[in-house]
């Protein structure tokens, strides 16, 4: 089984976080107060932010290693990511949003796989709807389908439920649970909601402002 090993210091102006943990299959929840550096850690794993120091290794792939100056491009890391505010392409249909993320040259096959994925997340009927008119819950489902479209090894979830109402939150939680189990991938879930921990965590990494303090089963 693939292991993700993170041991980095990530810095932005005025703030720095030291994160050290490993994650395997299942859902690892990064839990802690807002502003403790959870999302920064995720950005470093996604490759959108260069760590100041340290290493991020996923199986045989070195995502980042500052001692030898390695920084793999986001595009090459085979990740899926869901943001708090979906970050969808509002000018394209939900189907296009998912199909674009499928790493296949053939447009027809990509659309077929995207259709299957949207059906899997329960959006079969909204496939060609106007993306910007979808509800918050529907947008997050599209974002989840899109994140899985590239057949990622790691699924990064950055507060994906926090902008949803209670009902959509529950159904999104169980959707994430079953998709992660189905695919046997590593999922990292950033949250400051204790309910997410109870409902989803296979492993927990606890954050204090600026650092990880413990990783527990």
């Amino acid at each position, binding site marked *: 089984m693939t292991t993700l090993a993170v041991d980095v210091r990530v810095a932005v102006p005025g703030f720095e976080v030291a994160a050290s943990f490993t994650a395997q299959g299942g859902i690892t929840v990064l839990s802690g107060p807002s502003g403790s550096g959870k999302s920064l850690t995720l950005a470093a794993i*996604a*490759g*959108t932010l260069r760590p100041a120091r340290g290493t991020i290794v996923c199986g045989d792939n070195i995502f980042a290693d500052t001692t030898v100056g390695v920084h793999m*491009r*986001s*595009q090459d*890391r*085979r*990740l*899926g*990511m869901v*943001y708090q*505010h979906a*970050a*969808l*392409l*509002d*000018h*394209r249909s939900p189907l296009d949003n998912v199909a*674009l*993320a499928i*790493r296949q040259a053939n447009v027809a096959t990509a659309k077929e796989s995207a259709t299957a994925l949207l059906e899997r997340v329960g959006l079969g009927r909204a496939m060609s709807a106007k993306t*910007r008119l979808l509800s918050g819950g529907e947008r997050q489902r599209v974002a989840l389908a*899109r*994140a899985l*479209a*590239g057949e990622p090894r790691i699924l*990064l979830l950055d507060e994906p439920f926090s902008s949803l109402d209670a009902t959509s939150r529950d159904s999104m939680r169980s959707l994430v649970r079953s998709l992660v189990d189905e695919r046997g991938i590593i999922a990292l879930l950033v949250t400051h909601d204790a309910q997410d921990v109870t409902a989803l965590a296979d492993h927990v990494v606890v954050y204090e402002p600026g650092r990880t303090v413990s990783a527990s089963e």
Partner: protein
Amino acid sequence: MSDWFPLWLSLRVSVIATLLASLFGVALAYLLAKWQSRFTAIVEAIFTLPIVLPPTVLGYYLLTLLGTRSTLGQGWENIFGSPLVFTQSGAVVAATVSALPFVIRAARAAISNVDSRVEEAARVMGLSEWRVARVVTLPLAARGIGAGVALGFARALGDFGATVMVAGNIPGQTQTLPVAVYDAVQSGDDATARTGSLVLGAIAVVVLILVTQVFARRR
């Protein structure tokens, strides 16, 4: 107005100039928006000059840069067999340079305003930089770019000073509509001056309505 040649020439010149300014302007705006360095400000200032310089001064620079005795002018003549200045191609160059800053400024602002999280999301899901630009950034910036292109077209169509310096005022050859209006006033041909001015005025109004109502409106 008996002779419609200046109008057709003006339209042809400004359409070609707008296309050229859009291609070059959007590409440059993209680079300026994405790769910020010390030089960005200098490059942007240089390409904004056409807005603030007197058009005749801009025309003088172009004439010096592209005239038959200049390196660029010689090069053009070697390739195409005829000089660039005092031709319709010269008019296109003058109009392109005049339109360029409007495209660059609007496109740069629009591209910078695109939510970087959406671009990041596209990168994380595996899209190459080129596809991020084509599928995400440029479509999301399209309205702002469109507004700049429309203003650039209006500027290209209305250019007088730079065109007269670089392309001259040869009736039936390089005389664009704004130049023809000036000519008509000089020679006391009120009817031609009036018609030409009304036509240019009408086109400008249409463009401005387009800019405010279609392109600049928030989605």
